[in-house]
């Protein structure tokens, strides 16, 4: 393969230069995404109704608050990581966000399972059905946030767009799963872990490709 001389490349790039709208501040974009996430959670909780024992469960110091805190950490960390990954000089924020998100998921799944010895108290089609219903609801609630995240990502320049899209989808689904967690009537720790805490992983797997495609499409338009 041959290479163009660097000087010629400079000329080509200068010739190709067009005005570009500067990306908004990271904290502004993060505020928009987190604000939208908060609105989605509040809206769903208002629509489906907060489970009546939420305050008692949150004060219990058991698996319920652990899963809620883990999902919140995954949502906040993942959002920060996805947006920071689209700016070359914010890799530290991206790493911290990833760490926070991964720690949140570990807290919500592994630690909750280990500390509270969660095992399925029942099995069968009904259990699987209710777990799937919660996980799918979390992913569906994440759709508007995923679209918003893709748009915000498209204003930057992600180095690895596929991975960034997966992190954004994970964060969006964590918001959706948090809303499900506060509205689902189940008292099963096993259900909270499999259907609520693991939903972001499923969301990342399912939504990463569409988020990436949307971000790429909008990035090319600008």
């Amino acid at each position, binding site marked *: 393969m041959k290479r163009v001389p660097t000087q010629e490349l400079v000329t080509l790039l200068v010739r*190709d230069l067009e005005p570009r709208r500067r990306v908004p501040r990271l904290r502004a974009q993060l505020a928009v995404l987190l604000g939208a996430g908060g609105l989605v959670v509040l809206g769903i909780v208002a629509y489906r109704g907060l489970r009546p024992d939420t305050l008692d469960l949150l004060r219990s110091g058991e698996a319920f608050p652990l899963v809620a805190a883990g999902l919140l950490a995954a949502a906040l960390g993942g959002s920060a990581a996805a947006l920071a990954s689209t700016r070359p000089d914010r890799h530290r924020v991206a790493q911290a966000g990833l760490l926070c998100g991964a720690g949140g998921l570990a807290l919500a799944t592994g630690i909750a399972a280990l500390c509270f010895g969660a095992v399925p108290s029942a099995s069968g089609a009904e259990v699987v059905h209710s777990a799937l219903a919660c996980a799918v609801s979390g992913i569906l609630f994440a759709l508007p946030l995923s679209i918003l995240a893709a748009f915000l990502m498209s204003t930057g320049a992600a180095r690895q767009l596929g991975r960034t899209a997966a992190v954004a989808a994970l964060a969006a689904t964590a918001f959706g799963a948090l809303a499900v967690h506060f509205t689902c009537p189940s008292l099963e720790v096993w259900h909270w872990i499999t259907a609520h805490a693991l939903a972001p992983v499923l969301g990342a797997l399912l939504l990463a490709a569409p988020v990436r495609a949307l971000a790429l499409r909008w990035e090319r338009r600008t």
Partner: protein
Amino acid sequence: MAAAQEGDKAAYERLLEDILPALRSFARRRLGDDVAAEDVVQEVLLSVHRARQTYRPERPFEPWLFAIARNAIIDFQRARTRRQREVVLEDDLLQSACAPTDPAHADAHDPRSELSPLLGEALAKLPEAQREAVLMIHVEGLSVIEAALRARVSPGALRVRAHRGYRALRALLGRPAP
């Protein structure tokens, strides 16, 4: 850089000229190889161009630039390791398949007319993007950067397309994978 974001070509040219020596020295220190360093400098220039909207004037310019340079070096080292394993096989595949056709039927303007019928058929079966990448790089002899600019994708994306194209060609022509 702020002026370049507004579309000021003269300011942009000055900026690119000004950062070249620092980038060359940074890349040479990290890679210890002038040719590789120049490749990385070109990748950095392209990344600066692609990511120019992500620079914010209230933040210092150097950390932004050298974060791009560090990433380019990491990507380059990964790609070099991968390519060292593949390049020999790709060249062998294309040289043996590009057997000269009847010169009477060759079209001087169409690079595809130089291909053997076997390779022509195999190329026709590739997805459009992969075929375009293989033709531009190995048949027309364009550099990755020229080909990427023409296809309006990043050099990395073009390399991936070309690599997938070679892999598909290898399978279509019945050659073993590396």
